[in-house]
């Protein structure tokens, strides 16, 4: 069997892109102290909206724009429920995932069997969404680590009471972060329908949103870690496909399991290191998942 490393790497970049987008978005949301488990739902919403607009207009760029808007719109449901009505973030996020899957199953019916327009190729034969995803990593890192608004976002996520005490608008910062996370999740989902599968199928994100959530933890809330995690997951996905194609004598079901299994193993190793090791305390934002309510 022959597996060419370069071609595997190029395929890996494609397989990693949806998770990279969704993971970076969720990272920003979590750094602002909000846990949105609705990534899967926002991704599938973006996948359908992006596919529909790209198909109707013939422009993939318009498709991704629509996907970003759809993802952000879905995230605003979560934002209103958790930030204004103070609902439980875990339950609301799960509901958003179920809602997104159900909604797209219904509205997606007419699009089944249609074909997506071709992606515009970018430099080195890689499409421009791959490049955009990679470019977002240093941008998000720079924003969080160096820019004043990023510092405020981290402060809100770290200790929302103290941030409020200093006069920062906790709720507004969080809503903006949730919207950004939704937009990136939507674009990540659309990458699957427009650039990878090239058509719409019900439930096509197949757990990518959950992998993205796991990768944020794997990354210890660091954008470069999200890139590494996305590449790791993409690599395992591509490798198992290649092994399947090469006809290795391992049951297909086991090979298909590999990416998810890899994610679980990495998460276990990281928790073990945090518990027994030297890494000196978890990197999770201090106010992650806690509701904020200011008395006026």
């Amino acid at each position, binding site marked *: 069997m022959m597996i060419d490393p370069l071609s595997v790497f190029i395929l890996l970049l494609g397989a990693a892109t949806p998770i990279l987008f969704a993971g970076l978005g969720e990272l920003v949301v979590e750094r602002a102290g909000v846990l949105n488990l609705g990534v899967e739902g926002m991704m599938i919403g973006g996948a359908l909206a992006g596919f529909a607009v790209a198909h109707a207009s013939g422009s993939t760029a318009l498709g991704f724009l629509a996907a970003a808007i759809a993802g952000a719109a879905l995230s605003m449901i979560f934002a209103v429920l958790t930030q204004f009505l103070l609902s439980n973030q875990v339950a609301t996020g799960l509901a958003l995932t179920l809602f997104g899957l159900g909604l797209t199953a219904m509205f997606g019916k007419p699009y089944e069997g249609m074909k997506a327009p071709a992606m515009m190729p970018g430099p080195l034969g890689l499409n421009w969404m791959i490049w955009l995803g990679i470019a977002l990593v240093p941008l998000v890192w720079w924003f969080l680590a160096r820019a*004043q608004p990023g*510092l*405020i976002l*981290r*402060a809100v996520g*770290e*200790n929302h*009471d*103290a*941030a*409020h*005490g*200093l*006069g*920062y608008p906790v709720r507004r910062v969080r809503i903006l972060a949730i919207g950004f996370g939704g937009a990136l999740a939507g674009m990540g989902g659309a990458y699957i329908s427009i650039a990878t599968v090239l058509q719409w199928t019900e439930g096509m994100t197949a757990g990518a949103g959950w992998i993205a959530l796991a990768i944020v933890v794997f990354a210890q809330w660091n954008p470069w870690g999200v890139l590494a995690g996305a590449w790791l997951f993409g690599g395992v996905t591509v490798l198992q496909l290649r092994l399947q194609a090469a006809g290795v004598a391992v049951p297909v079901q086991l090979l298909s399991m590999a990416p998810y299994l890899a994610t679980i193993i990495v998460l276990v190793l990281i928790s073990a290191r945090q518990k027994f090791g030297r890494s000196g*305390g978890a*990197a999770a*934002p*201090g106010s992650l998942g806690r509701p904020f309510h200011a*008395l*006026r």
Partner: protein
Amino acid sequence: MSNVFRAEGLGKTYPGVRANDDVSFAVEAGEIHALLGENGAGKSTLVKMIYGLVRPDEGRMALLGTPYAPHDPRAARAAGVAMVFQHFSLFDALTVAENIALGMENPPPRAELARRIAELSQGYGLPLNPARRIAALSAGERQRVEILRCLLQNPRLLIMDEPTSVLTPQEAEILFATLRQLAEAGTAILYISHKLEEIRSHCDRATILRQGKVVGTVDPRAHSARELAAMMVGAEMRLVDRSGRKPGAPVLEVRGLSTADGEGVALKDIALSLRTGEILGIGGVAGNGQEELLSALSGETATTPGTVLLEGRDLSAAGPEARRRAGLLAAPEDRLGHAAVPEFSLAENTLLTAGTRQGLIRKGLIDRKAATAFAQQVIRAFDVRTPGPGTAAGALSGGNLQKFVIGREVLGRPRALVVNQPTWGVDAGAAAAIRQALLDLAAQGAGLIVNSQDLDELLELSDRFCALNQGRLSAPRPTEGLTVEEIGLMLGGAHGMEVAHVPA
């Protein structure tokens, strides 16, 4: 024109509470002005209004002679008002420099900010490394960060909300030296506290609040602590009665007790001997092993054989329930969550620790009638203000729940009782009642260990005093004749702080 800040007729109403009512007072340039009052007297609401966190319902404020109505803390800072919070408003995962930048309107570039932090911290004798993370700093150092954050804005009015509650007496002295230095440079300082001695020795004037109203503005040096307390409470303070106690035979022996390094502080080779009828006071700044000691004695943490003996019986291997049955009871400081389940009714909460001792649980079945009766007994004996035993613990105010939790253990007829922070967050009247109950319990022949950060309380209650510092317990000293300065030294002195130099 020496008025830096003036409030006229400020009022604020929350649902069911008149937090502030017609509050008027003025702070002058160069003075340290104390705001004195019990918990719930409206001090916090008042300073939140000044700092723009809460908007007053009525009344006016003026800063430097011009009308002042901040709509958020940033506006307050821009106008020249800075505040050091009681519960630190710092971000653990961020560095000192980042924390300070968050408190400034227009933070300079990083290198410039680091230079200014270093310069200012040296000038005030508050050494700090701008690149360190807050999580790695001690309580005293964290407070320095808060103070520096304020000083970098050159405030005209500096508000300090109970700043000395986390400091040793020596650290507090250094803080006052810094404040005095600032006041002499013309800053007005509004100092919130309920520690009367501290206010009497360091503040120029004191405005006293009671139930949201101003009782008066006085010169604290011209009044005794008793007179100030009477103004705060609105009645003469009852003196606690220490009589009727005779230390007898040892009841609780602790020998070579150490715990493993875990989340908190490890206990290191603790030894103590508690006699019947005696109260042993343990002082220390929070986070030096108080909670760990209570857990090791109550049985929550496993202890090695031969370390905890009650009346000669080795209880080291016994769990909390077995220790309670033997007569070793404990009241932890975290009332909601550790000492009581907030969602449970008071009657159900009695079952948690008094279940078998009071016969409320028989053959594994709960006797609800007995539990309700016992809860009723605690409520009556300790004057807990609540509709009845069916009320959820979480619905009680902090002070009332504290009375209930302590009462539950005291009425459990312990042979030895360990109490952490018995009057933390409790108003002065209730605190006196709790202290009296502890003294009465000792007079009936029980041995008590009281962990507290309130040194005056320890001096008032205990027969012997030990200091707990980084998991080590000092040798006990008789309280009689012990001064606060000596206690401060036992607590570890000033933790590496230096006295302020003249600023550059």
